[in-house]
Structures are given as C-alpha cells and as structure tokens.
C-alpha cells in the first residue's frame, strides 16, 4: 500500500519521453497563447492591428492563414496533452513552462519580423512611427525564447542529477 502510494506520488516528469512531451505541450500552448493575445488585445481591444492590409502579399496571406489555423488547433490540443500528461503522472512543470515561453516567443518573433516586416501583413500600430513598437515586440519575444531555453536546460540538468542519485 505504502509502496503504491509513493509510486503514485512520484512524478515521472523527468523521464525523457515525458519531458519532451511536457515541452511540446507547453510550446503549443505558448504559441496559441501569444496568438490569442495578438487577436484579442491588438486586433479587438486596441484596434491597432488591421484585419487586412492592402500591402499584404500573397505569401503573407498564406502564412497568416496557416499560423492562425495552427495556433487555434495548438491551443486546444495543448490542453488535451496537458491532461494526458497529468493522468499519466508525467507532467514536468518546469519543462512545460520552458516550452511555453520558448514556443510563444518563437511565434512572436516570427510574427514581429517575418510577418510584420517582410510579408507586411499589417503593422503593429498605424499612423505612428512603428520602430519603437517593433523593438519592444521583438525584444520581448527574444527574452521569452532565452528564458524558456534556460528553464529547459536547467530542468534537464536537475533531472540528470536526480536520475544519477537514484541509480547510485
């Protein structure tokens, strides 16, 4: 009984398969979360972003459509993956946050540099100098990626140390 109890309480999140799935679920959630903020805050509440910008290229339209669809799917799928990890006792919280920050940051950086600047889907804000907005947008994105990757690396190290202890 005690043995079973301890088995159930011990998280398997440091097993490599569960760690990478925790990162994956976090990354999908981060991507969906950033897309959600982009849509609700910048499109709907502030009305800074435009639904369609005449300068949008064909490639921009395709990229926007793909990311819009992917982020919507990712948000919902991430929740199901999270529940699946939890019921299997395999959720690695730190790895999940690492994935969430780096996934969200990567999408924001892609949106800020490729979609806004190269494909010209739309600017962050109109009738103002977009430069400060672009800088803040992309610096936040880069900071998220770095923080996320650091979390993942630390988690991997502590996991390796723990596994080492268990083996010895």
């Amino acid at each position: 009984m005690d043995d079973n109890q301890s088995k159930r309480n011990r998280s398997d999140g440091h097993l490599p398969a569960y760690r990478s799935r925790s990162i994956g679920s976090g990354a999908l959630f981060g991507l969906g979360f950033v897309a959600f903020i982009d849509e609700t805050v910048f499109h709907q509440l502030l009305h800074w972003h435009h639904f369609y910008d005449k300068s949008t290229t064909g490639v921009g339209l395709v990229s926007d459509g793909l990311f819009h669809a992917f982020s919507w799917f990712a948000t919902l799928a991430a929740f199901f993956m999270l529940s699946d990890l939890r019921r299997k006792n395999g959720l690695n919280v730190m790895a999940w946050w690492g994935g969430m920050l780096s996934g969200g940051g990567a999408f924001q950086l892609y949106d800020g540099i490729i979609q806004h600047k190269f494909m010209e889907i739309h600017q962050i804000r109109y009738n103002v100098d977009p430069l400060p907005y672009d800088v803040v947008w992309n610096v936040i994105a880069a900071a998220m990626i770095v923080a996320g990757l650091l979390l993942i690396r630390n988690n991997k190290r502590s996991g390796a140390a723990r596994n080492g202890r268990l083996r010895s």
Partner: protein
Amino acid sequence: MTPENHPWNHAAANVWAAVFLAAGVLFLVFIYVFAFIRSSRKGRAWPLHRLCLWVFGASTAIFGILASSPAKIQSDFVAHMTSHLLFGMLASILMALATPVTLILRALDVKRARKLASFLKSPPLRVVTHPAAAAVLNVGGLWLLYATGLFGAMHEDPYWYFVVHAHIFIAGYVFSSAILGNEPNPHQSSYVFRAIILILALAGHSMLSKYIYAHPPASVPVLQAQEGAMLMYYGGDAVEAILIWAFCRKWYDAARPRANRAQVKG
C-alpha cells in the same frame, strides 16, 4: 433600384431549390430515426445523445437554409454567410459526430450490411472519404464558389443553387467525418496526419475569408463583403473549435493508459 431589375432577381426559383434541400435533410432525419428504432429492436441500443446530435445538426441545417430565406440571402451577403456557417459547417460537424454509418450498419441485416460495407470500401468512395481528398473537395469547393463566377451563377440559376448547396453540405459532412475518424474504416490515417489536414483546411478557410474581404464576389457590395468575410473568419473559428475539440477528445480517449499494474495487483 426596383426589385425587378435587381441583379439577383431569381429568388422565387431559388426558394424552391432551398425547400427541396431542406426536405432532403428532413428525409435524412427519418432514415436515422428509423435505423435507431430498428437497432434498438434488435437489442443493440444506440446512444440517445447521438440521436440528439443528428436531430440537432439536421435542424441547424434546415434552419440555416430556410430561416435566412433565399430571397434575403441574395441581397445580403452577411445573411448568406450566416447560412453558410450553420448549414455548411455547424450542421455537418454535429451530424458527423452522430456516426450515421455505424448506426445503419447495425440496423441492417448481415447480408445488406456487408453489401453496404463493401460499397463503402469501393475505390471511388475510399478516395473521396480520405481526409486529404475530403479537405480539398470541401475547402476547394468554397474557393471555386467565391473566387470564380460561380457565386453569381448560383443566384441566377436554381440548378446551380441546388448543386452548390448540396455539395457544401455533403463535402462538409464527409470532411468532418474523415477528420474525426469515428466510423469503421480499415484504412484509418494517423492522428498526426489528420491533424495536419485539419490545420491546412482551417488555414484554407481563413485565407479565403481574407481573400473575400479584399476581392468581393461579383455584385456583392464592398462593405457587405467585408462584414461577411469577418463573420466567416471569426464565426468559422468558433464552429471549427467544436471539430478540433471533438478530434482531440478522440485522441485523448484513445491514448488512455491501460489500467496500471499496481492497480491490477491490488
């Protein structure tokens, strides 16, 4: 502009096409209820919630095609798009969730069920019910409708009106069913493959919304086209969330861990 020389003055003929379509959907309800009763009589009770999904889905389709009447749809692109969301998307997803093929296979006697099963396995049906082909037929059909002259032709000719709407409805259903993969299928594609197809189809739908925003179909006023396009984009997201949710839910159930050893021992 008087109604007589309005560009879409073919409402009366199209009303009949719409009534015909609604009658067809109603017929599908009768078939399902009949199969439901037969299956129960054979001692194989069919879940009631699936019957509800089918009836609710069919009602949505009938409401979508009749409530915003064809006369109105032809002068109002937003009403047309509302009808499209209900008739072409919501109804087809709800009806696919009701797994009608499984029910009919159960209700039929063995000999006829085998015939139906082998018909469903025949090459042409296997092709069109493949998720990728179903997605192309579904979203590709919409691109044809809005990005070519078909939209105008549909409003001038009740025959085209009928064909286009029947196609949207059937292609929507086959697509939802293929993505969900909830009917017997020996050649089921993997969850990852179906997820990719689903995302590509959703992307095609979003892109088409923005395309309509920028390039209104012939004879649709610009403001109406923009409002309709945004309804298609955001309304589409809301309806598609049901399909994504149901798809993920199926994966979640399939990935359920087997009873763990400790519990079995205990």
